[in-house]
């Protein structure tokens, strides 16, 4: 149902922009009123951002962070989807595996940092492993749930047309579970983006997480710290928006309630 007070087009942009402006103003005047010497004002941050862009290190850091997420998340997708579908498809397998998974799942990837450094040493691989861990469990769980929620009517209809079990999985169960799987992937990507920053603060010497730590350690450049934080937010938002576009694909749109 559309509410009667449907916002006008200009209002859809006006109010969010106003709130952002108020936030910046609050930030700006707080810095002035408290006369802090450490915390940067929005203008400092803007100058810091410009400096980062001029020095050309920024693009390398962004690329490194994105690359790690791509590899870690990609590995989680490639492994997690087939495993999740299998577990969902064979409930007895799921019953055996599920308790172990439920214990591993709530462990924050951050808690794995020491272990991953033992496994992989300090370096890219350790960071990627942490991202993988963060993304893997939500993907598996989404697949298991997605498969077990496929209505029995759909399964029966598939069997009725003479599909072999693997065809049933590919042509009925997977597409029926896909909306839920996509939701899981989106959550997993968000987590991957959270984890990469943390991992880069400890295990590697490049990336946006490293940029934050490095800016602080080498001369307390909090303008650069906050600039990097904002960038992380913006890139995370972009990734999420990009992923949401998948929900518009016609063959999955039926699974998202607010789309008709």
């Amino acid at each position: 149902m559309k509410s009667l007070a449907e916002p006008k087009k200009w209002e859809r942009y006006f109010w969010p922009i106003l709130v952002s402006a108020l936030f910046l103003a609050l930030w700006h005047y707080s810095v002035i009123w408290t006369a802090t010497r450490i915390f940067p004002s929005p203008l400092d941050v803007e100058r810091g951002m410009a400096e980062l862009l001029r020095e050309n290190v920024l693009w390398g850091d962004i690329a490194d962070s994105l690359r790690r997420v791509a590899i870690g998340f990609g590995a989680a997708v490639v492994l997690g989807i087939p495993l999740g579908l299998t577990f969902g498809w064979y409930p007895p397998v799921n019953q055996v595996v599920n308790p172990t998974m439920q214990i591993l799942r709530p462990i924050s990837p951050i808690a794995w940092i020491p272990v991953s450094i033992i496994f992989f040493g300090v370096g890219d691989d350790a960071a990627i492993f942490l991202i993988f861990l963060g993304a893997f469990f939500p993907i598996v769980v989404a697949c298991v749930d997605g498969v077990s929620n496929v209505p029995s009517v759909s399964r029966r209809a598939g069997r009725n047309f003479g599909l072999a079990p693997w065809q049933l999985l590919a042509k009925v169960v997977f597409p029926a579970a896909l909306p839920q799987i996509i939701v899981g992937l989106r959550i997993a990507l968000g987590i991957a983006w959270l984890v990469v920053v943390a991992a880069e603060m400890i295990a590697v010497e490049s990336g946006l997480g490293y940029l934050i730590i490095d800016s602080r350690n080498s001369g307390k450049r909090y303008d650069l710290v906050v600039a990097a934080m904002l960038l992380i937010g913006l890139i995370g938002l972009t990734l999420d928006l990009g992923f949401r576009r998948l929900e518009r694909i016609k063959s999955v749109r039926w699974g998202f309630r607010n789309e008709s």
Partner: protein
Amino acid sequence: MEPFVTPAAVDTKLRVEHVNIVFDRDGKSTPVLNDISLEVGDGEFVCLLGPSGCGKSTLLSTMAGFLSPTSGEIKIDGEAVRGPDPRRIFVFQERGVFPWLTVEGNIGFGLFKLPRAERERRIAYYVKMVGLEGFERTYPPELSGGMKQRLEVARALAVNPDMLFLDEPFGALDSITRLIMRGELLRIWEAERKTVIFVTHDIDEAVQLADRVVVMSARPATIQQIVNIDIPHPRDISSPRYLELRDGIFKQIGLAHKL
């Protein structure tokens, strides 16, 4: 004055022999079907009629091979039913269409073994038959309930089955669409002469459609009576014979139709 319609005159398509079904759940066993025996002739249109929850869907699912009887046997063309088979398609209430496939994709779903040209020819034919031209690329959420139901019937017909099992297919439609759909189903049945087993709890629907109405009792279901509907199509639903048959079934079920 039993009408002279003998299903024995045609070949027997389906034979249900002393079928019992007992569901065991939570250590409690519920008998649902009690010694059901029934014969259906080739090309016949039979309605299973009974109150909600009496076991009609259970019986139909068993005929279609999705459930196996606790005891007794179901034979189709003389062979025991061992599982679902593309030669006999089960049509669910519109929920059976696949929302991730277009109208074309749904109709073509069971045709994966055919060469492409033949598949496309059949899809086009059945799109036309159920009046969905112009909606070939549309996804089910954008179709009305009646269109989805026609789509599901088209998907079933496209694989050219010799039997259709319909489980209250028009139950979720508004009463006008339901009447139109009954007409269309009869038109299709007269053109293609499939054997149709149609489940309903609507007495009028049963008497409008069926050659024979199988009246079932409340759970555990037994067959109370089998009524031959000896009125040719198109049926005049205000004719004395129609009213007589309908009222007979009302009485049989124990309902006087006065509110």
